[in-house]
């Protein structure tokens, strides 16, 4: 193989991948390893950071061999990672101190509830853009330090370091105990609940709230700059890009202009929209975040809406109801009927995320009659994913006055054409699937390649993007209006199902921790009127 390539690591929730790309952005190789998931208690989900680092060590030669290149031909390395997963390690031994606590883990609910009870939610939203939630890394760091108070002292002396996964990998790749570079990037830092979303620096007030010593924090850097040079198998390769996975997918989908949007459909779904260079006001419904910051350029912002259950609802049909044998067969079953037969599923199995944010909501199936067959259930399950996407898009339109022109999609569920068509129909915009489905890796590669001049500019990258499929809206507007209002009515049945606990009761581990007084819950009127429909008098707020 002649010429050079760009490498990217996607450190994901279930596996780590390493891919090589050529100048046209085409995949040359892909090596992948799954790591163990540990569930020591209900609501706890953790990984072993040392295991993940060992995997990276094995993936490098595998990917290089597949493509027939050696490290000297790698122009740059980019990293994307599962966001919010928290690691603490010993600077002198290089070993992690405790588990890597993942983004799904809810063990910090007491810490988060405590912050809310002390009336800190407003300040936190104001500074970080985030509502206090067990998602974010900051409370996890506090939990780790609270477990072992001696760590906090050592951390204050700079002997114990904190990082999200990209920080951990960059530190190790650049030499670890032997001169490892301790940095994070703005997108990952924006999901810690410790960074000021305007200044893009660690915020002392937040650090005080969480009792985190500043000395243990990595330096916040842009998404595209040379953080350091790799040692070991990739010796000499500049590590030149890092992004959280959802932002990496946004970048890999070349969503470079305000209004460009992507949605990743996997177990859950994550929709991000580029909102341009101004920090979005905290909306009632979707979270403001950083899309990317390239070198010294001003940062570009985004809003993000996440949907808890999309693919996992299909898994539930498969594993718990045993209606289907494999996830793709949900399409076969759904096509056995012409429509949903009046049946709607609201998959609020553990509350609803954006834009409803109701932890007390629970799943419902409404509209059952003796006419309903399992095909209708399958169809309703797929339509639920489409209508939840629609809710997020409508909320963004309402909060920010942004209207989508197309939606770019990726993830395992995009192989479902019935679903993709329904998403196009519900949103009334074309839905596009790009040719390179590994958009997370591609985004990290793009950032790194831009830094070292492998690619000239964003425009060049946009030209690499090719559509593999497009679904155009076909639904009659009257049907859309009817179905969306039926969906809203179905959601009303799901909201507030779990009785509110008396305030004195101790929070349970699994209980989502969105505070009752947080504005996005309190300000949410009943479903139909909360969405930015034509009847809304004040869409832009």
């Amino acid at each position, binding site marked *: 193989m002649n010429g050079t390539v760009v490498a990217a690591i996607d450190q994901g929730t279930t596996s780590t991948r390493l891919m090589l790309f050529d100048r046209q952005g085409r*995949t040359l190789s892909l090596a992948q390893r799954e790591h163990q998931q540990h569930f020591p208690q209900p609501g706890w989900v953790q990984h072993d950071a040392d295991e993940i680092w060992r995997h990276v060590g094995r993936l490098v030669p595998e990917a290089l061999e597949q493509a027939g290149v050696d490290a000297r031909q790698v122009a740059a390395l980019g990293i994307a990672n599962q966001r919010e997963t928290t690691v603490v390690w010993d600077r002198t031994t290089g070993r992690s101190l405790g588990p890597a606590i993942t983004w799904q883990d809810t063990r910090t609910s007491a810490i988060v509830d405590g912050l809310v009870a002390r009336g800190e939610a407003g300040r936190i939203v104001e500074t970080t853009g985030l509502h206090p939630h067990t998602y974010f890394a900051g409370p996890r760091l506090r939990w780790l330090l609270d477990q072992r108070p001696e760590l906090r002292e050592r951390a204050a002396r700079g002997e114990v370091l904190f990082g999200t996964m990209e920080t951990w990998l960059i530190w190790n790749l650049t030499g670890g105990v032997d001169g490892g570079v301790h940095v994070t990037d703005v997108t990952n830092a924006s999901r810690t609940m410790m960074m000021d979303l305007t200044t893009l620096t660690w915020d002392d007030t937040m650090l005080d709230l969480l009792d985190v010593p500043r000395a243990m924090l990595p330096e916040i850097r842009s998404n595209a700059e040379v953080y350091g040079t790799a040692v070991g198998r990739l010796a000499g390769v500049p590590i030149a890009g890092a992004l959280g996975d959802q932002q990496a997918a946004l970048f890999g989908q070349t969503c470079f202009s305000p209004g460009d949007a992507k949605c990743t459909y996997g177990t859950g779904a994550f929709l991000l929209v580029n909102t341009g260079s101004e920090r979005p006001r905290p909306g009632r419904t979707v979270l403001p975040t950083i899309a990317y910051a390239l070198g010294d350029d001003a940062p570009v912002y985004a809003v993000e809406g996440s949907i808890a259950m999309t693919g996992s609802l299909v898994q539930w049909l498969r594993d718990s109801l045993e209606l289907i*044998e494999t996830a*793709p067969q949900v*399409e076969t079953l759904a096509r056995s009927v012409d429509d949903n037969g009046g049946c709607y599923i609201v998959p609020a199995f553990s509350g609803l995320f954006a834009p409803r944010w109701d932890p007390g909501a629970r799943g419902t199936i409404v509209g059952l009659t003796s006419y309903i067959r399992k095909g209708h259930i399958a169809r309703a399950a797929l339509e639920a994913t489409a209508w939840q996407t629609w809710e997020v898009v409508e909320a963004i339109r309402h909060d920010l006055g942004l209207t989508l022109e197309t939606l770019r999609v990726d993830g395992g569920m995009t*192989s*479902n054409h019935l679903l993709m068509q329904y998403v196009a129909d519900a949103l009334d915009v074309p839905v596009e699937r790009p040719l390179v*489905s590994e958009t997370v890796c591609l985004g990290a590669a793009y950032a790194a390649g831009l830094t070292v001049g492998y690619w000239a500019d964003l425009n060049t990258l946009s030209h690499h993007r*090719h559509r*593999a*499929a497009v679904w155009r809206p076909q639904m009659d507007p009257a049907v859309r209006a009817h179905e969306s209002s039926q969906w809203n009515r179905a959601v009303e049945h799901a909201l507030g199902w779990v009785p509110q606990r008396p305030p004195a009761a101790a929070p349970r581990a699994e209980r989502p921790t969105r505070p009752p007084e947080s504005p996005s819950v309190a300000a949410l009127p009943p479903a139909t009127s909360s969405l930015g429909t034509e009847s809304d008098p004040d869409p832009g707020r």
Partner: protein
Amino acid sequence: MVEVGGHIQSVERAAAVLRILGSAGKPLRLAEIASALGLAKATTFGIIRTLRDVGFVHQDRETSDYSLGDGLRDLGRASLDPHDLRSHAMNWSDALASRTRLEVLVAMPQLDGARIVHHVFRPDDSAQVLRVDEVLPFHATALGKVVLAFAAGIASPTPGLERYTQRTFTRRTSFDAEMRGVAERGWATEQAEFVPGVGAVAVPLRGFGGLGVGAVAVSGPLERVFRHAGPAMDDVVSATLETAVAISRSLGVRP
């Protein structure tokens, strides 16, 4: 063997063997099966050996005991689910489109032609529409020829060979000769036989047990698929063959 009323005794006995194995809850010895049926061991053995050879009965290598075989479980699965096929094929087809810069189609056989179950656009950003569910004629397309030649249970098209272009095979003798070529080569071509100016190469996909379950094809302007007035380009053919092997491998292990 044939009794009055048309009952075939050995078939009845075979059914009885399967019922006994199905309800036993554990593997059985030949003697146990024979005594349950009230038959001689030799007779029982004849029946059970036949059932074993067709895959309906499994014999443990070490204990020699009998239980129900995998072949029975697979009976209920009429054929591969098209959406499972698409899901298995998706990443590989994307890579094929990106490598050849051609459109990629995956199809499964049905009685009147090859039905498209997956489609990847030609990566040149020209306006294209999804062709999923389109049924391609057996005699005028590469995908049609391949599923006709390699998929189980498909009869050759009857009687008229409809003309789509000047180059469509409309005479039975020349079409039969074309199909002999497909069977020998193991893959098929299409040279402006369905749509003027469009060429394609198609390769069979094999599923569980090596059965032909469908086909994958690349398609595009004739000059991008074929050498000038000659055979299909080697790199296009080899990329498609490799893709078919990769998809088939992923189908071999049922999810």
